[in-house]
C-alpha cells in the first residue's frame, strides 16, 4: 500500500513537471544537439556465456549519440526512471520480472523487449497473435524474410527523418535473423512492416503521448517498439565507403538510421494539444477561415440529408468560410481554386463516380462508403470499409459513440482518450480501414479495426499506392448525422476541418 502510494506520488510529481515543461516544448523531433547529455535508463538482463548479447554495443552507441546512459537490470525499481529523459529496454531483460513497472511512467520508452510489449500496453497479451519472435530454428524461411522491411509510413516524424519510402529496405545484415514483431492497436503508428508477413506484423511502431494503448490506457509518454533481439544490434544495416554514394543503397541500408531516429523521436517532447474547448476551437477556425473557399459537394435537393447539408453549409459559413455548393453531377473542375472540398454523405457513390480523387485541395469525406474510390482504404466492402447500424447492410447495431484513440492529434479536438458521445441518438456510423500513413483519431466502439475518423497528411501513401495530393480525412457521418451531433461531435467536425486546411505537416 505504501509502495503504491509512493509510486503514485512520484508519478504525480512527474506529471506536474512534465505538464509545466510542455509550455516550452514545440518540436516533434529535437535536433541531436538538443539531446546531448540527456539521460537514458538502459534496462538489460543477463545472458548465458557465449549467447548473443549486444547490450554493451547499444550502450556505446547511445553514448556516441550524446546520451548519458545508466545501465540497470530488470530488478530495478520504477523510481530509477525519475529524472530520466528516456527508458530503453533490451530484450535481454526478463519481461516477467519487468512486469508493468514502467507501464505508467511518464518517461518516453524505447524497447525491443517483445515479450514486454503487453506489459506496457503496446500490444495485446496473446503470443503469436498480438506479438511474437521470429527465429531461424522455428521459422527458418521467415528468418530470411524478416531481413526485408517495408516502409509502411512515410509521413511521421521518424519516417521523414529517415526518408522512409513505401518500398523494401534491409532491416538487418544478410544473416538469418531473430526479430520481434507486433500488432499494435489503432492508437499506434506502424512505421515499418516486415515484408512477406501479410503486412500486419509491425517491425517498428510508435505510440504518441496520449495515444490509446491496447489496454485502453493513454500512453503516458512516447513509446517505440523496435524489431531487435539480444545480439543483433551490430547487424542493423548501414552503408559506408563507396557504397554510401549510391542513393539506392543508402535508402536500403537504413536499419541503424531507423533505430537512431526512433530514439531521437522518443526522446523529444511531443507537440502539446489544446485541451477540449469548443469555443476556443471555433475561434481558432474563425481566425483561419476568413477568405478560405470551401466546395461542398452534395446531392442538391436530396431527400434524406437535405437539411443536414444545409446546416453543415450554414455552420461552415458561420465560421467564416466562403462556401460554394456543387451537385454530385457537376464536373470536378468546380474544385479549382478551392481551399477545401467536403463531400457530403448525401452524394451517391455511383453518381459521384471518381470525381475529386486527385483534387489538389484538402478533402473531407462525410461518406465512409466512398473510401475505396477515394483511396482511403482497400476495396473489399465490409472488410476494408463499411458501416454500423444499417439494417440491411450491417450486422452491427446502430451506435452513437466513438472511441478516441488519437487524442494526441488536434483532430481529436482535445477530447480525452476513450468513448465519446458523437451523436445524440444511435444511428448509422461509417468506417474504413486506412493504411498506416493515416492518423487514426477514433474507431467505432469495440471495433478497433474500424476507424471512424482519420486523416492522411499530404504526401501520405494511400490505398492502391495513391499519394495524397493534399490532406484527406474521413468523418463517419450518415446523411442526417450533422444535425444530431453532440457538442463533442461538433468539435470533432470542426477539428477535422481545421486540421484539413492547416498546412502540410502531420
Amino acid at each position, binding site marked *: 500500500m505504501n509502495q503504491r502510494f509512493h509510486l503514485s506520488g512520484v508519478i504525480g510529481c512527474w506529471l506536474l513537471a512534465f505538464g509545466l515543461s510542455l509550455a516550452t516544448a514545440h518540436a516533434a523531433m529535437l535536433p541531436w544537439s538538443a539531446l546531448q547529455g540527456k539521460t537514458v535508463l538502459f534496462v538489460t538482463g543477463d545472458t548465458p556465456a557465449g549467447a*548473443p548479447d549486444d547490450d554493451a554495443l547499444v550502450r556505446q552507441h547511445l553514448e556516441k549519440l550524446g546520451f548519458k546512459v545508466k545501465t540497470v537490470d530488470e530488478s530495478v525499481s520504477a523510481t530509477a526512471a525519475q529524472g530520466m529523459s528516456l527508458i530503453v529496454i533490451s530484450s535481454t531483460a526478463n519481461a516477467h520480472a519487468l512486469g508493468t513497472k514502467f507501464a505508467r511512467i511518464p518517461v518516453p520508452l524505447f524497447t525491443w523487449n517483445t515479450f514486454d510489449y503487453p506489459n506496457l500496453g503496446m500490444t495485446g497479451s496473446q503470443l503469436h497473435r498480438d506479438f511474437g519472435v521470429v527465429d531461424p530454428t522455428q521459422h527458418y524461411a521467415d528468418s530470411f524474410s524478416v531481413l526485408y522491411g517495408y516502409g509502411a509510413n512515410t509521413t511521421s516524424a521518424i519516417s521523414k527523418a529517415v526518408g522512409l519510402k513505401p518500398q523494401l529496405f534491409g532491416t538487418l545484415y544478410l544473416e538469418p535473423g531473430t526479430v520481434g514483431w507486433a500488432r499494435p492497436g489503432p492508437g499506434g503508428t506502424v512505421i515499418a512492416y516486415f515484408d512477406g508477413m501479410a503486412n500486419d506484423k509491425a517491425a517498428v511502431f510508435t505510440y504518441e503521448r496520449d495515444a490509446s494503448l491496447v489496454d485502453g490506457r493513454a500512453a503516458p509518454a512516447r513509446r517505440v517498439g523496435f524489431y531487435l*533481439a*539480444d545480439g543483433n544490434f551490430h547487424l542493423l544495416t*548501414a552503408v*559506408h565507403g*563507396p557504397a554510401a554514394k549510391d542513393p539506392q543503397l543508402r535508402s536500403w541500408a537504413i536499419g541503424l538510421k531507423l533505430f537512431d531516429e526512433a530514439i531521437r523521436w522518443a526522446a523529444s517532447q511531443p507537440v502539446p494539444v489544446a485541451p477540449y474547448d469548443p469555443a476556443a476551437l471555433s475561434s481558432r477556425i474563425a481566425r483561419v477561415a476568413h477568405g478560405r473557399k470551401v466546395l461542398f459537394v452534395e446531392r442538391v435537393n436530396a431527400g434524406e440529408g437535405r437539411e443536414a447539408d444545409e446546416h453543415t453549409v450554414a455552420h461552415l459559413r458561420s465560421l467564416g468560410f466562403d462556401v460554394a455548393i456543387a451537385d454530385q453531377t457537376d464536373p470536378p473542375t468546380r474544385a479549382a481554386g478551392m481551399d477545401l472540398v467536403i463531400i457530403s454523405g448525401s452524394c451517391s457513390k455511383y453518381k459521384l463516380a471518381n470525381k475529386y480523387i486527385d483534387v489538389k485541395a484538402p478533402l473531407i469525406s462525410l461518406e465512409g462508403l466512398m473510401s475505396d474510390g477515394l483511396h482511403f482504404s482497400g476495396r473489399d466492402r465490409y472488410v476494408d470499409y463499411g458501416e454500423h447500424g444499417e439494417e440491411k447492410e450491417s450486422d452491427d447495431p446502430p451506435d452513437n459513440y466513438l472511441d478516441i484513440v488519437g487524442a494526441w492529434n488536434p483532430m481529436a479536438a482535445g477530447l480525452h482518450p476513450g468513448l465519446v458521445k458523437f451523436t445524440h441518438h444511435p444511428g448509422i456510423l461509417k468506417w474504413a480501414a486506412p493504411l498506416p500513413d493515416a492518423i487514426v483519431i477514433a474507431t467505432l466502439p469495440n471495433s478497433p479495426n474500424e476507424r471512424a475518423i482519420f486523416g492522411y497528411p499530404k504526401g501520405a501513401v494511400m490505398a492502391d499506392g495513391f499519394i495524397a495530393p493534399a490532406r484527406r480525412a474521413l468523418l463517419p457521418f450518415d446523411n442526417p448525422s450533422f444535425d444530431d451531433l453532440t457538442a463533442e461531435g461538433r468539435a470533432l467536425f470542426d477539428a477535422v476541418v481545421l486540421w484539413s486546411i492547416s498546412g502540410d505537416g502531420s
Partner: protein
Amino acid sequence: MSTFARNAASYSMRRFRRCMPWLAACLFCGMASAATLPLQMVHRIVVQGTAPVRAIVPGPDGTQVYVASGREIQVYDVATGGLAGTLPLPAPVLDMTADGRAGIGYAALAAPARVVVFGLHPLRITSTVRLTDGAPSALLLDAAAHALYVESAAGASLAKFDTATGKRVAALRLEGALRQMATDGRGTLYVANMSHAAIDAVDTARMTRTGAIPLDGCTDPTGLAMDQVGRRLFVACRDGGRAVVDTDMGFAFQQLPVQVHGAVRTVFGFHPFGASGWKGGAFSAGDAPQLTAVRMNAFISYSAAGTYPLDGSCESLALDTAGRGLWLAVAPTSAARSQTGAPVELWLLSETAGASK
C-alpha cells in the same frame, strides 16, 4: 534466462546454433579461437643475412620462394632450403610483389625512392622507376588491371603506375598512418589507416578517395586482405580486433576479437591448404609471436579459428596460391638474436593431416 519471455530470442539463437550445420562449424571454430591452429611445419628455411625480411613471394610452380631482405632478392629452393640465387639491389628493399604468371617482380627501394622491376626467370633487373611521392612503404599489384600501387606512409600518398609502360598514372594524397592495402579487382583499393578506426576506399580509375568504412570495435587497423569473389575485406587491428567487411555495403558485419595484439599483415586465400581443407582463410601475423586466422565457413559465416605459436615476430607472410600452405618469415626475439645470432627463418605451414575431416 529463467523464463521463456525473458530471452526467447537468445534461446532461439542457441537452438539455432545447435541445428545449423555451418553455424555449428562456426561455433566449433569459435570455441577453438583460443586453441592452437591445426597447422604443421612443412618446410623451415634459414634466411641468409641478418636483415629483416620485407616480403615473401612464392614462386608460381611452388618449387622456389622469393624473399626480399636487405639489399637483395633471395631465391630459395623449397625442397632443399638452399639458396638458388640472389639479385643484388642498389638500396635496401622495403616491399616486393610479383606477377608470377608474367614472370615479373617489383621491389620498392628507399634512398632514392624507386621501384625496381625484375624478371623472375632469369633473375635480373629489367628497369627502374623513380618515385616522386615519398619513400615507399608498401606495394600492391593488380596484374589484371596492369596497375602497381605504391603507398608512401611518409609521403602520405598513394601512386598508381601502369605496369605496361612504367609510367606514373596518377597519385592521391592520403593523410594518416597508412598500412596494408587490398584491392577488389573491380576499381576500388582499400587502405588500412591507423589514424582513424576505418578503412579508406580509393577509386582506382580516378585515384580519388571515395569514403571510409568505419570499424567499430577494431582499433588501429593494420592488416588488410580481400576476398574478391565474396567481396569481403578482412581487417586485422592492432588491438586484437578482427573484422569482416561486406564491401558492397561498406558494412563490417562480423567482429572476431582474437586477443592477440600488435601490428600485423594479413593474407587471404581460398583453399589455403588444398582442396580438401579450409574453404578460405585470412591469416594475420606481425609483432606478436602468434599467427592468427579467421576461417571462412561460408560466405556469411566466419570464425576466429585459433592461434599458432611462432618463435618470434613475423616479418612477412604470404599464401601459396596453389594451396601448398602459408609462408612466414619468423624473426627470433631481439634477445635471442643478440645472444645466439639466431637467423630469420622461412616457415611453410600446412594443415595438419585430417584436421578438416
